[in-house]
């Protein structure tokens, strides 16, 4: 059994190695099949491993499979094994990554068919590598192994976002993604260092045990507790990876990559890493209430900010990108109010419908030969029926209409936010839900309803750059490989929420029960603290209180559904019935509209405040000033001085015997004079 875990990341990694080396000579069928097969294999092994895990007796309160592959990094007290660990949280993650990853691979075989064979192989090698690193990330049993995956997905996003490398904007976007992620890593590395110096280990389970046993939090730096500082630093890393304020700027640009890559980044890999990392270290974060507050506030603000930007964007992928940022904000809100299971639940349902939406948008773009601007779409409902109906399901799911997946997970988050005493955050989150409903239906209407505005020659730069303008009659719906992926994702988007039906609706919230042990320290003594705590929690909720809670929960649920419907209504009024009204509004509030259209000018702000000054100072002050001016100036100055004095002294050596005789004579006179004078 033990060797099986390694196979999960290894299979796609082998796919990468083969496709990156010899695959470029093979046909597209072989390379695409190999990559998809590797992912499907990883999915199969994952299912088997999770099945095995479920059959285990809980040890220390949690079912888990450990595998130590080898000692990776060892120096003195720092002993880092390349260790993998499958527990309920990791189980959910690997199923999402391999399952949805396989579908995205399958979809890509059709989507990328226009590429040449070597480029096709390159694409699939990166895609495999991406999945492989994400699997290392979620299976890693300690921080450094997680960090391998963490940096690895950063690298793959760099490679895939910049896949069309001849396009400067794509290359820029790839670099931006990597650099912004590295800014987050700055905090992440410091967090790791602080944890290691304090606790002497970087193993997740050992850290959790030590933190749980800790009586009082040792203070570091100005009275702040060590866990507060460490978790805040880790959270900086999470904001980079999961595109939260202030490091969200890379994700919208990331749609420069091929559309299936966006699906992979937004649904299965990469952006979920920050949420996952917090869940993985739930014990640490639970002991840092200040950090949790910060996370909740950042989360809800990100959700609102991204939602408002999403309202006015015209690029179909950009709207979806901001929608992801917004939904990730929801997940962070959940983490911040301590609803770790709720956050991960939303991560899991979101993976289905966001993959579905991106792949659906890809099908649209594919049909329109690269058109991404919704102003040049419209009326596609009848032309692309498969795409339309699947896209509709995804939209309803993300908006949060019962009984689709998004409803349950979003509602869980809203309820937990409210019930943990954050009514203001709850209100803001509901407002974000309204925005979600509005911009998603705006997108749906602009793309599939109304008049066909896709006039030939209106090709926007994007995938298939330079392709011919869409011909009116050549529209074709998603080919089989793409259609299969869409349909399977529809099933997920509809059904995935059923694992988390709340008690208030007569369900038993199985996903929470399943995940909960991962969020507690493993008991070393053999007791089951997770279960004990759950029992205490249950005792606290006396039956009558539970009844009142249920009523409130149902009321809140009703509110959020009404809000979603209101959002749809708004979109219908403004973008379906009378689009001119939306234009009028935009004109009326042109300042606000411009602000949103330009994404609050955050990129411009960063550029003006950080990028340009650093470049300028480095060039004119450090390089030309300090290096060439002061340091080299003084060194060369010494050189010139020496040379100058040498020139003076050289004159003394005239070669004239009389001059020498004269100087000897003067010397003798001086010495004699000195002695006589004395």
């Amino acid at each position, binding site marked *: 059994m033990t060797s099986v875990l390694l196979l999960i990341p290894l299979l796609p990694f082998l796919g990468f190695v083969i496709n990156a080396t010899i695959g470029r000579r093979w046909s597209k069928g072989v390379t695409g099949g190999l990559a998809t097969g590797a992912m499907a294999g990883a999915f199969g092994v994952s299912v088997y491993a999770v099945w095995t895990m479920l059959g285990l007796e809980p040890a220390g309160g949690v079912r888990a499979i450990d595998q130590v592959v080898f000692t990776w990094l060892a120096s003195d*007290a720092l002993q880092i094994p390349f260790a993998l660990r499958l527990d309920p949280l990791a189980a959910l993650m690997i199923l999402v990554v391999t399952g949805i990853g396989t579908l995205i691979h399958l979809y890509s075989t059709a989507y990328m068919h226009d590429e040449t064979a070597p480029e096709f192989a390159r694409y699939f090698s990166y895609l495999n590598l991406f999945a492989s690193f994400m699997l290392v990330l979620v299976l890693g049993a300690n921080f450094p192994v997680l960090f391998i995956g963490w940096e690895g997905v950063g690298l793959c996003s760099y490679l895939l976002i910049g896949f069309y490398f001849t396009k400067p904007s794509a290359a820029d976007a790839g670099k931006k993604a990597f650099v912004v992620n590295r800014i987050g890593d700055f905090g992440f590395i410091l967090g790791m260092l602080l944890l290691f110096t304090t606790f002497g280990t970087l193993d997740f389970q050992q850290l959790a045990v030590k933190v749980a046993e800790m009586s009082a939090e040792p203070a570091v730096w100005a009275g702040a507790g060590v866990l507060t500082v460490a978790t805040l630093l880790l959270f900086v890393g999470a904001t980079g990876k999961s595109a939260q304020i202030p490091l969200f700027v890379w994700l919208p640009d990331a749609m420069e990559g091929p559309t299936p890559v966006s699906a992979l980044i937004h649904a299965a890999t990469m952006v979920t890493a920050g949420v996952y990392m917090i869940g993985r270290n739930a014990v640490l974060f639970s002991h840092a209430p200040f950090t949790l507050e910060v996370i909740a506030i950042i989360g809800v603000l990100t959700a609102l900010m991204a939602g408002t930007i999403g309202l006015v964007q015209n690029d179909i992928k950009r709207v979806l990108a901001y929608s992801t940022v917004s939904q990730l904000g929801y997940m962070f809100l959940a983490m911040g109010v301590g609803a770790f299971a709720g956050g991960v639940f939303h991560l899991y349902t979101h993976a289905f419908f966001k993959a579905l939406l991106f792949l659906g948008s890809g099908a649209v773009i594919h049909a329109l030969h690269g058109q991404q601007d919704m102003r040049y779409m419209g009326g596609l409902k009848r032309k692309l029926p498969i795409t339309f109906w699947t896209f509709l399901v995804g939209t309803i799911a993300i908006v949060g209409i019962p009984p689709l997946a998004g409803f349950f997970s979003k509602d869980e988050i809203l309820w937990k936010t409210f019930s943990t005493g954050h009514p203001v955050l709850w209100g803001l989150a509901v407002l974000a839900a309204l925005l979600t409903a509005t911009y998603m239906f705006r997108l749906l209407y602009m793309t599939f309803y109304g008049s066909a505005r896709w006039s030939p020659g209106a090709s926007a730069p994007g995938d298939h750059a330079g392709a011919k303008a869409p011909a009116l009659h050549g529209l074709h719906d998603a080919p089989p490989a793409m259609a299969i992926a869409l349909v399977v994702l529809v099933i997920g988007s509809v059904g995935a929420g059923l694992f988390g039906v709340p008690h208030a609706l007569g369900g038993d919230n199985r996903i929470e029960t399943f995940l909960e042990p991962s969020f507690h320290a493993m008991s070393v003594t053999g007791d089951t603290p997770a279960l004990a705590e759950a029992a205490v929690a249950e005792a606290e909720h006396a039956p009558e209180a539970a009844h009142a809670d249920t009523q409130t929960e149902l009321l809140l649920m009703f509110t959020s559904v009404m809000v979603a419907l209101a959002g749809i209504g708004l979109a219908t009024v403004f973008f379906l019935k009378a689009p001119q009204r939306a234009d009028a509004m935009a004109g009326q509030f042109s300042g606000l509209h411009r602000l949103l259209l330009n994404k609050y000018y955050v990129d411009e702000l960063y550029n003006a405040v950080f990028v340009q000054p650093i*470049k300028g*100072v480095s060039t004119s002050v450090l390089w030309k000033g300090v290096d060439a001016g002061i340091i080299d100036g003084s060194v060369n100055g010494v050189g010139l001085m020496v040379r100058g004095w040498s020139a003076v002294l050289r004159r003394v050596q005239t070669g004239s015997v009389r001059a020498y005789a004269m100087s000897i004579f003067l010397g003798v006179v001086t010495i004699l004079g000195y002695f006589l004078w004395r």
Partner: protein
Amino acid sequence: MALTLLVLLPLVGGLLVLLLGKGSEGRDRLVKQTALAISLATFAASIWLWMGFDPASADFQFVERYTWLPDFGISYHVGLDGITLWLVLLTTFLTPISLLCSWESVNQRVREFSFFMLLLEAAMIGVFISLDLFLFYVFWDAMLIPMYFLIGIWGYEQRIYAAVKFMLYTMAGSVLMLLAIIWVAYYHQQVTGVISFDLLDLYALDIPAGLQTWLFLAFTLAFIIKVPVFPFHTWLPDAHVQAPTAGSVILAGVMLKMGTYGLLRFSFPMFPEAALQFAPYLAVLAVIGIVYGALVAMVQPDMKKLVAYSSVSHLGFVVLGICAMNVNGVQGAVFQMLAHGVSTGGLFLVVGMLSDRRHTKLISEYGGIKAVMPKLVGMFMLITLASIALPGMNGFVGEFLIFVGSFAWNPWMTSVAVSGVILSAVYMLWMFQRVNFGPMTNPKNKGLRDLSPREWAVIAPIVAMCIWMGVTPGVFLKPMEPAVRRVVEQVRGVLVPVNAALTLKTTSEVVLPDGATKTTSEVVSAAEGGAR
């Protein structure tokens, strides 16, 4: 004889090459082949040494000692420990690669070029294995001469300026070091009655703090010019830009490590009190260098200059790790020396291959070349990733260990140093993007050919090492640890407990041999009390 053989092979081989004569193209070819064969034989010999090396021992191995100038206490004393084992292997690994990379680009005075390269190799090995300060100094200065000529004869346009600047900077430090060497040997005579230049004798001296300060500063100045530590670095960009590729590879790959090696072998353990006193100041310079080097690298228009400034930044990490003076920090520092040697050597090789084709190193002359040379760009990518310390590549291991070590020592300075992680990604990826991505705007780049078999032979070993060292760093860290521990103990004057087994227990507790349990700080303070 094993170690002496390692010096003699390239030395005698170099003289042999000189005898081969010159003139015809065929003769030049023979010269190149002979030189390459000699360097490969040296590499094989060093591998053989590695096989015979006892990884569990902290002592010097393969020790040879012959009296040389008995009246002055000078002897031919050489040996290898877990630190120098790797530095010697780095030298013997990079020399054949450098010879092979010059196969086509060096066409004039081939005989002399090959001679100087082999002479340089002999001198560099000599520096690493010397256990006698006089012998060390001889090799140290002997190393300058071939490098001076390599830059001055086979370099680019401003080679004379660069060669002279390189020579003057290094000599300025060397002179001070020579004075300090004589002084410390003389001090040995004052205390014991016998003059001695032997390192092990000098380690045993108990030098008063006041004298330690002066001697430490003299040695350290020589070494930090060599590293180079900010603000003594300005010779480096000029030397690199003007040096031929082979010179840059050796310069960045091995010679810069002479400085950090010197700190580790001489400055710190010989004058521990002064070292501990000055370490924070040195670390401040190192941290400034990390950030400063990275920022200046970012805005360089010339690829070689960019890589040169990146070395200032990367070696700042090494110096920081040494200043932390704990096992993690120093092991990280030594590992980083090796990693930087391989990856920066690789970067210079790639830049050399590009400039062989286009005769320019300006970033703006390139753009979009991935379209025509995907293989070269692929290798370039891997080396870049190693250089920006992606986990799984060699750069990460060194940096991470240094961070762990220096964070325990001084979290604030480490926090500033970690920003280098961001900056390295910025300058490397920006350069990489401008050279390789984007549309091909310069028509001169259209017909560039991809890697030739010879170039594969040059670059493949480098890339393989970048990955090998990143995936299984234990191979390199394990034989190094006893020697590193010895150095730390020497400097700190404290026995450092072997706490590898510690992680299984709670780290704050150490199980002592007598079964008692104490916290780490108690053990350390007890040991400190015993040592003082």
